[in-house]
């Protein structure tokens, strides 16, 4: 994992003049999906890259040790061994980027990964996920406990009410405190963009989160009605680029929620490539929060290698 982002002092002039034109961003989002495509070897390689960027996630009320264990095992062996061998990628150490669970399941995940002999980081959601409607004190405590349990990445949700009422200083201060509570763990800030009201707010919240020292900014919890969409991503990526131009700091990006198909994942990779550049195309700076995506990617790779479409039972479940 890359070095921690330090963030900057709060500078409201960075967000005061920003304009985001929603219909124009929507058009760009449509175009970007139609203008790039990768085929054959390129597709296989890109899909494997996507696998290494996945935060393999389970965030359900009925999570228990057994399905967490299965998830962790899948994170270590995301693609069937023979398929990787066929692509001459077996020794590349292809695993997902992390596993992502609720705070109460962090112990299970750490234990399962240790048992599997694997150093994939465990990410935990925190701060009153998904609504953030709990007291700041308990939200901070949640972070500390998750870190104590062994989570090395914390996905915090921001307090949407601060965005909707324009309390940018307060938002900055909260995220600052989250960052402190994280200690050495990486901070991914979930903006819950489906609930921010406008793309202009998405840009502003992104910029505040980066100034406050987030290592990643993340689109959504997966629990809102609107999840990771391209228009929102474009705005967040432009904010990441502007922040990089102003400070020289590279902040990561994580779309989450609703990314289910291999084709989607390719589109996300090319979006990052177009808007930010190749240096962002690595797990240190790009993650995809997903659960069902991995099996579709494996299915596509199976097809690429064998020329046949896989049956459900051909691929191990996660």
């Amino acid at each position, binding site marked *: 994992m890359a070095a921690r982002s330090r963030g900057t002092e709060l500078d409201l002039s960075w967000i005061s003049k920003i*304009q*985001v*034109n*929603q*219909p*124009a*961003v*929507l*058009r*760009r989002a449509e*175009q970007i999906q*139609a*203008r*790039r*495509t*990768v*085929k*054959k*070897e*390129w597709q*296989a*390689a*890109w899909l*494997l*890259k996507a696998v290494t960027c996945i935060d393999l996630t389970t965030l359900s009320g009925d999570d228990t040790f057994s399905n967490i264990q299965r998830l962790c095992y899948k994170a270590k062996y995301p693609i069937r061994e023979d398929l990787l061998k066929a*692509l*001459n*990628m077996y020794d*590349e150490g292809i695993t997902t980027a992390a596993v992502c669970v609720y705070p109460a399941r962090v112990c299970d995940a750490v234990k399962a990964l240790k048992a599997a002999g694997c150093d994939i980081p465990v990410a935990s959601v925190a701060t009153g996920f998904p609504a953030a409607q709990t007291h700041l004190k308990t939200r901070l405590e949640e972070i500390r406990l998750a870190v104590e349990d062994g989570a090395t990445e914390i996905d915090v949700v921001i307090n949407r009410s601060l965005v909707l009422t324009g309390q940018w200083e307060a938002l900055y201060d909260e995220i600052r405190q989250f960052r402190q509570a994280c200690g050495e763990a990486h901070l991914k800030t979930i903006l819950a963009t489906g609930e921010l009201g*406008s*793309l202009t707010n998405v840009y502003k919240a992104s910029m505040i989160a980066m100034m406050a020292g987030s290592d990643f900014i993340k689109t959504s919890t997966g629990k809102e009605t609107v999840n990771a969409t391209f228009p929102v991503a474009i705005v967040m990526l*432009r904010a990441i680029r502007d922040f990089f*131009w102003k400070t020289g700091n590279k902040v990561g990006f994580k779309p989450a929620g609703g990314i289910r198909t291999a084709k989607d994942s390719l589109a996300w*990779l*090319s979006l990052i*490539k*177009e808007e930010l550049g*190749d240096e962002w*195309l690595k797990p240190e700076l790009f993650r995809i929060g997903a659960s069902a995506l991995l099996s579709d990617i494996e299915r596509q790779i199976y097809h690429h290698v064998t020329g046949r479409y896989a049956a459900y039972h051909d691929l191990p479940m996660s």
Partner: protein
Amino acid sequence: MAATHAEPSAREIFSTLEYGPAPESHACALAWLDTQDRLLGHYVNGKWLKPEHRNCVPCQDPITGENLASCLLAEPEDVAAAVKAALDALGSWSGVPGGSRAQHLTRLAKMIQKHQRLLWTLDSLVTGRAVREVRDGDVPLAQQLLQHHAVQVHDQEEALAGWEPMGVVGLILPPTFSFLEMMWRICPALAVGCTVVAVVPPASPTPLLLAQLAGELGAFCGILNVLIGPASLGDTVGRCPGVHKVAFCGAVEEARVLRQSLAGQRLELSLALGMESLLLLMDSADVDSAVEGVVDAAWSDRSPGGLRLLVQESVWEETMRRLQRRMGKLRSGRGLDGAVDMGTRGAAACAAARRYVQEAQSQGAQVFQADPVPSASPFYPPTLVSGLPPASPCAQAEVPWPLVVASPFRTAKEALAVANSTPRGGSSSVWSERLGQALELGYGLRVGTVWVNTHGLRDPAVPVGGCKESGSSWHGGLDGLYEYLRASGTEDRLPFVYEHLNYDSFGLAVPAALPAGPETGPSPVPPYGLFVGGRFQPPGAGSSRPVWDSSGSLHGYVAEGGAKDIRGAVEAAHQAATGWERQSAGARAALLVALAAALERRGPGLASRLQRHGVELEAAKAEVELSARRLRLWGARAQAQGHTLQVAGLRGPVLRLREPLGVLAIVCPDEWPLLAFVSLLAPALAHGNAVVLVPSRTCPLPALEVCQDVASLFPAGLVNVVTGDCDHLTRCLALHQDVQALWYFGSTKGSQFVEWASAGNLKPVWVNRGHLRAWDQEPQGAGPELGLRAARTKALWLPMGD
């Protein structure tokens, strides 16, 4: 090429994450060319026409230079055959009800749908454009165009009552861009009942394929005939008897030549010229999105030409930085690759771009290319030119594909001044998040299309056109239909041309006027002088011309106007035009109604003048009354101008604005000295134009009397009436570069001269070719045709969303 290259393994790609080739198979395009034995002829009357002994030009792959097929070049005999086929088909095609034509067009749309893959691969293969743009943009739009126009004419008999199809239409298309240029024009033409002879440039087989698809529908074979040939065939097409209109798309200089050579041919010539577009970026804009707008406008194979980019100085640095970063991400490549932004356009386009860049550099401009390519490459990279001195020759010339020429401005006012200072008036976009500012610029730009915070959208329901040297023809929407309709009762074309009309001397000299004996008859003393700038002025030449009454005695003298008086009148009109344009339609209507009342008060005097001119008293009174009614009528009509269009797939309105032409010159007919004068003046004023009129030469006095009321009611300079030698004044007006339109009702010779002279600034002209009009009848004296000609359309796109 691919065979010699070892393809990288997945392992290598995993670390580089580069894009790979994503070729679209073009086997079906080649198979289609094989059906023609790789020799493309013309498609006439539902059959392939491959005459012998014709010159051939190769149709090449723009990247490899490989010969795909040979194309036969059309000769005049082929044009004659195509026109004959179109004429033969005209009767049955225009004779069937609109509903049947609509059905036929719908069938063609379905036919396109069935063979879309062939269409897009063939087009991308030969034009080199990105297949994505053809597949996702052009082909669906071609179908929409057919369906839209089918709906438009479904009830043509009622909806377009009073109009009839023009007849055979000749269509001249520019060197390869998109087959859509043809679709935009043939759809309305065919829909209303015209038949078409299209001359497409060599190496563009897609229009031939479309003609074949139309031909294979079975019925109505000769309605669409496609010939391959140079744009210079436009003249041949225009001279064919039976062709009633030529629609020319292409370069400005070619258009001037064609306009001159077709003068007096008694056909309509509509021009759609130039390819450059314009983008205004204000400091309140979403700059990143505006940069995408630049990409859409210049570097995505969507538009045929280059882009002039005006950026507010306060965001100049930021814009350039973002633009240059974005340019680094653009991919050029083979058009048939599914992952390129830009294909290529062949050697000629690359050479033109290279030439412009070299000239710009020598004139002091900076040139940025993210990824320069060797000059031998068939590709030309996206190029940004900045720092071009405004007075340099390059800054005046049209920006070629794929260049963007950027320059800064300080204020919105300055942006408008700079943008309006080019001779072109095609399309433009405005990027600003401030609604008031965006609308101010949108209304102020002298162009045919304005997009706000977007660029390059198009829809069959929205008219696209231009002004100034971009030509004043329309396609799309209702305006596009009227291009191919004429008011019922318009005379058929009689081929009669003064081949030897001497354009250099026509109307050059004014015959001398001498004292003509005693003035007889009753008072009041007629007004004397030229009505210019709101008052009567003595003529610059200092001479007068006599006016005779019907009995042959001297009625009085009017001033002998000349070139200097015309110059003064046009200047005065320009000064008044801006203020008049800003007046609301209601205010304009109120003044027209006031003029009507004043005219009625002056009724007896006017009637007696007309009587002296030989009109029966009752008829004279009726003429005065009808004139007053016409003023009121146009006052009322002026208030129902423009409307909102609905566009599929766009959230937000598109406004169809009707804007004044500017200074409109009108040469009135001799007959109906009062009624014709008023019938022409009223629509011109109602639509916001300032006018310079030449009244009836046999009886100019009623017009001058009306001017006495105009002087007290209207702003000075809005209406100018210049008396004198008709041919001489016509010459002055027709050659005036700052007259925006000219209506001429006079002799055949005069009409021919006006058409010839309009090649100068390509002003739209309306000439009667010596035919008399029934000014007292509603269709010809106050029909919708006058309203259509008195203003131009602008489409203002206003997408919404937050």
